[in-house]
């Protein structure tokens, strides 16, 4: 087998951190080599060394057996390395063709852009992908799946034979993921080598030939995929046996704490009714775009509802804005942690205390001692790893950031917690901690809602599971009452029936208009 890339003994340090420690990695021609590791293990740093963004302190990079002397971004692109980042690097207001040929547009007389040739070339380039993309379309008008195709096409047009894909499936839905895998497999056949970074271990079986697990900046193991199983990979990632990924819990459910009746908003959801009892975890699953997040935001008052009622502990709650929801004891842990859950530039302390400042101030003046005690306690209890409370949250890892968001609500002692994709982008070890925290809340008598796309997770964690399709709850399952295939069938809308919410499994006596 021909080796196209060798990275040998790569070390890279930042003040206070040794991000890569004599790391080694290689890549064969025409293979997909998966790179896995917890957040902060050093995956991105390694790829930044490969892309020329960082210079390694030690070690060498060899492409096709030749040592790379000065590795700038330009040199690595010329040498055939393309990196497709998680947050795609395309310019939203330019066309597909302009993005692909950015900076090297075909020109007439060296002056005017040869649009005709550019569009024609792009069409040729996109042909093997078998997708319907107009080279003239603006990037913002095409979905994330097609944007990824554009990135891949751009890499190919640069004659790259090594492509790095960082979490490529994160923004994609089920079908799109399958299409991407097909694409990767056909790229392989043309001799392109791919480094595939992903958190979703179950995907690896579909694409990867070899897997390298890294931990703490060092290579732990490189094996053929068929010599490894998921459990072993996870064990290597976390460095310990992960016996209880989904901690078991049996908490008797108490009185009803939240009831939603006939929640509707045109175009987002219709006639959604459900209830949550104290000590209960109610899961919400469905495909991306099914309306789960929107349902939660409607309950929370972040989106305005057309109709429907929300009851807290049996009393109707008039919730028009998040403020109202918070006042009634609802806390939302949003899907977009960095955009909606945190103020990244502020400290751990400021973020965690944001929701209680009004509670602990007299005439606007903060009772600092009191707040500080509460936050300090919470940060210790949550085992948030931060040098000090003054550390800006943007420097924390995903798992610790999520714990800061949770702290913000825990200090308020809410009655209902809505977790929207609480474990997204969080490494395996921290996930289990979040699960346990959710169960603790239930044990203390709170009602918990968990929205999640990870079927396995949401099925194992929730006492009841609501399946959402097309803005409606199409089915409710008790824990253990269904296989994941069954749940998926409902999520795909195979049992949805015709009318809006017509034959759903669970309908409260309809008082929605």
């Amino acid at each position, binding site marked *: 087998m021909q080796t196209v890339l060798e990275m040998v003994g790569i070390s890279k340090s930042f003040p206070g951190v040794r991000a890569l420690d004599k790391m080694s990695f290689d890549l064969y021609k025409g293979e997909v080599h998966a790179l896995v590791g917890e957040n902060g293990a050093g995956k991105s740093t390694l790829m930044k060394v490969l892309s020329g963004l960082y210079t390694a302190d030690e070690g060498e990079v060899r492409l096709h057996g030749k040592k790379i002397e000065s590795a700038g971004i330009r040199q690595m692109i010329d040498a055939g390395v393309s990196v497709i980042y998680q947050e795609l690097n395309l310019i939203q207001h330019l066309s597909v063709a302009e993005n692909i040929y950015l900076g090297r547009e075909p020109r007439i007389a060296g002056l005017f852009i040869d649009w005709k040739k550019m569009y024609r070339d792009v069409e040729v380039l996109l042909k093997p992908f078998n997708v319907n993309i107009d080279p003239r379309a603006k990037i913002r008008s095409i979905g994330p799946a097609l944007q990824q195709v554009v990135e891949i096409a751009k890499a190919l047009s640069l004659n790259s034979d090594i492509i790095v894909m960082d979490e490529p499936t994160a923004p994609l839905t089920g079908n799109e993921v399958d299409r991407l895998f097909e694409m990767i497999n056909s790229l392989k056949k043309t001799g392109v080598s791919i480094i595939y970074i992903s958190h979703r271990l179950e995907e690896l079986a579909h694409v990867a030939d070899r897997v390298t697990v890294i931990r703490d900046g060092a290579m732990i193991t490189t094996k053929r995929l068929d010599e490894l199983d998921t459990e072993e990979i996870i064990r290597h990632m976390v460095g310990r046996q992960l016996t209880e990924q989904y901690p078991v819990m049996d908490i008797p459910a108490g009185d009803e704490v939240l009831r939603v009746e006939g929640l509707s908003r045109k175009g987002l959801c219709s006639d959604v009714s459900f209830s949550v009892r104290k000590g209960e975890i109610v899961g919400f699953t469905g495909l991306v775009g099914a309306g789960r997040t929107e349902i939660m935001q409607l309950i929370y008052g972040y989106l305005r509802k057309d109709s429907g009622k929300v009851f807290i502990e049996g009393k109707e709650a008039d919730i028009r804005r998040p403020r109202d929801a918070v006042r009634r004891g609802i806390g939302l842990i949003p899907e977009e942690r960095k955009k909606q859950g945190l*103020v990244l530039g502020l400290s751990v302390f400021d973020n965690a205390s944001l929701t209680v400042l009004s509670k602990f101030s007299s005439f606007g*003046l903060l009772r600092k001692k009191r707040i500080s005690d509460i936050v300090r306690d919470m940060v210790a209890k949550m085992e948030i790893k931060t040098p000090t409370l003054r550390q800006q949250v943007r420097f924390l890892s995903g798992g610790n950031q999520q714990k800061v968001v949770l702290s913000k609500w825990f200090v308020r002692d809410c009655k209902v917690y809505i977790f929207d994709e609480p474990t997204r982008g969080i490494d395996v070890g921290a996930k289990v901690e979040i699960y346990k925290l959710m169960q603790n809340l239930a044990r203390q008598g709170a009602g918990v809602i968990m929205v999640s796309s990870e079927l396995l997770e949401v099925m194992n964690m929730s006492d009841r599971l609501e399946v959402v399709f097309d803005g409606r709850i199409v089915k409710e399952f008790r824990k253990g009452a269904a296989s994941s295939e069954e749940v998926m069938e409902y999520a795909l809308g195979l049992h949805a029936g015709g009318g809006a919410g017509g034959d759903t499994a669970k309908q409260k006596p309809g008082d929605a208009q």
Partner: protein
Amino acid sequence: MKINLRSILKNYGIVIAFLLICVLLAFLSPVFRTVNNFILILRQTSIYGIMAVGMTFVILTGGIDLSVGSVLALSGAICAGMLKSGLPIPLVILVTLGVGMGCGLFTGVSVTAGRITPFVVTLGMLTIARGLTLIYTKGYPISGFSPEFRFIGGGYFLEVPIPIIIFLAVVLLAWGVLTQTRLGRYIYAIGGNEETVKLSGINAGFFKAIAYVIVSVTAAISAIISTSRLNSGGPQAGVGYELDVIAAVVIGGTSLAGGRGSIWGTFIGALLIGVINNGMNLLGISPYFQQVVKGFIIIGAVLLDRLREEPS
């Protein structure tokens, strides 16, 4: 060693720059290094320094207020008019502050409830307030007030000019508000990420509007001082002040994107501008050239501030 130097530069860069400039000027000009000159600088600084303190609130939320100069003119003119008609001074002061508050309320509500960008709203307010001033004064200055009123801008307390005392009081009060109150913490949080603040159940719009009220009230305070000191309230008062005010805040390290900055930074920023104006005057450098230098200092300060953004 290198890291240490960097972190010192990072946190105290502007203070160091300020001190270096002071030392340099003290070296070059014997007049500069007198106590009297220093008091002079502080007094000159106080008028726009007070507004810079208010402006810090707005810029921390991620906004901007271009209308401070005009609001100063409007409240100053109304103040002068009321004094001329013989109203008691305390009442005049209260109403003047009320005028400022009204202007701020208008811009604040337009920005929050009306969802118009602060740049546009306050650009509008800049013209509106200037126009109202011209209407009210019919284009002529209103001058000649009682010694009691002139004491505010020209008097001394224990040999310290009153404007300086007011300036320092405003700085201290603002520092207290920003660090010790709910409002202060919310202002930083709103500038950092307004969506998160709203989703945390906080009335972000209300607190953001307050920032605009605060800056306009500081403009009214400056108006009272300026009217008293010049013994005149005129339609041309405060023209172009917004530039020096914003410059002081930016030089002081407050990020125009919001969420990061401090009152002490603004204080130093305002003093730096005062020192440079004063120093260059003493050295006989042409005012035209002074503008150029000030411009470079603004850019240099932001460049210095960039060091903070980079992880060390």
